[in-house]
């Protein structure tokens, strides 16, 4: 599996660390317990296209949003995750 890093080009998966489901949004600190429960513990866990965060830890160290198929491991694309508040 090779991930197309927008800065480094296609690189082996062994250079990256998986950081999980990118659709999970951390709620505000004063959100109700149910919202926190859903964000911390519940996952849609799809078979097919999955949005996920990968950290190019042994490369440019960018955090990437990768679109990958969990049934085939085919990667549709990768983009840098913009700083909070900025447009992606």
């Amino acid at each position, binding site marked *: 599996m090779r991930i197309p890093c927008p800065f480094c080009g296609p690189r082996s998966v062994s250079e990256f660390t*998986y950081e*999980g489901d990118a659709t999970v949004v951390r709620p505000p600190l004063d959100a109700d317990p149910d919202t926190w429960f859903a964000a*911390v513990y519940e996952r849609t866990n799809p078979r097919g296209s999955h949005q996920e965060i990968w950290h190019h830890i042994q490369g440019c160290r960018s955090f990437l949003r990768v679109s990958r198929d969990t049934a085939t491991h085919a990667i549709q694309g990768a983009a840098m995750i913009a700083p909070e508040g900025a447009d992606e």
Partner: protein
Amino acid sequence: MRYSLGSIIANAVSGQRLWPMAWRKAAPKPSYDAIIVGGGGHGLATAYYLAKEHGLTNIAVVEKGWLGGGNVGRNTTIIRSNYMLPDNTRFYEWSLKLWENLSRELNFNAMVSQRGVINLAHTPAQLDAYARRGNAMRLAGVDAELLDRDEVARRVPGLDVSDQARFPILGGICQPRGGTVRHDAVAWGYARAADRLGVDIIENCEVTGFVYDGERVAGVDTTRGRIEAPKVGVAVAGSTSQVMRLAGFERLPIESHVLQAFVSEGLKPFLDTVVTFGAGHLYISQSDKGGLVFGGDIDGYNSYAQRGNLPIVEDVASSAVAMFPSLARIRLLRSWGGIMDMSMDGSPIIDRTPKPGLYLNAGWCYGGFKATPGSGWCFAHTIARDEPHPLNAAFSLDRFRTGALLDERGAGATPRLH
């Protein structure tokens, strides 16, 4: 036919033509008293114990593929009960006790081999932690022995116990009653025993939807038509999220990850116990055919692919060679992947669901094989009585919401770390 010395002799003198099919090729009836979705080890064990312990014989197991094609045939066949948290210890010890009598109970040789499971320690802190876990196990009535380095070297002759090892070994902990089981025989043995009690085992029958009568479950739609039942139990391991989505559960505390396993070319007797590496993550044993069976970490990302990637192959192989330098030139015969239903705290779920009549057995991470008898026994109780047995009461679906987690490893809500 009951398997016995007599049946062997009768077949020997008649050209092996008298053996009947081990289980019937059942076609689905319109309705049953209960349906188990998933014909893996856990599903088949559940059906068997429902019939044997609870007298519920008008039941069906529906399996989308063939028996033994999923995780029950994709694991590294290890059984043990060396846990520390009391709820886990009690459950896995009950499972180990069921293993100890399984072949006799099922009249099927599952080749249960209690050859011991040794966990290696490489630091004083790790040895202290093993002593603590061993004491917790012994307080719960489970066997455990702390080993020093000389004793480890005596029991496992091929290990590199020198100071020059990449991670020098200080000692270890052994559970002598742990060991291995022939995994295919577990599926076949439970299938045959359940079939003999009247259970319909329906292969090549995929569930495509759930039927509800209001909130209450009323059956399933399958590729072989609708089957009605007032109780449906789901035990589908890595496909849990997929199947439960059909039942109306969009999100669960589970992620599906791929775990690879490996077997080497056959060797003469080399290793007569199960050894796990404490500095990395590796577990290795030798099968009765001579191949070394081993595995390590999950690949670490969501996957339904039943195959992994090469970096983990390299990682696992290098751990094996760090432990046993003499394995450096052994060739790999096969490798394969299974899909693990990784739960958010590393412990399983055996419980009712918010939908009356629908029951869930999931979240086994990569510890499901050793749990097969205990899981089926507890799930059968939960389905038959509509309430959990004390042995599985802690494996509740809502523990993530209430905070009563069973985090054996203390890794937090990160499935890839369990």
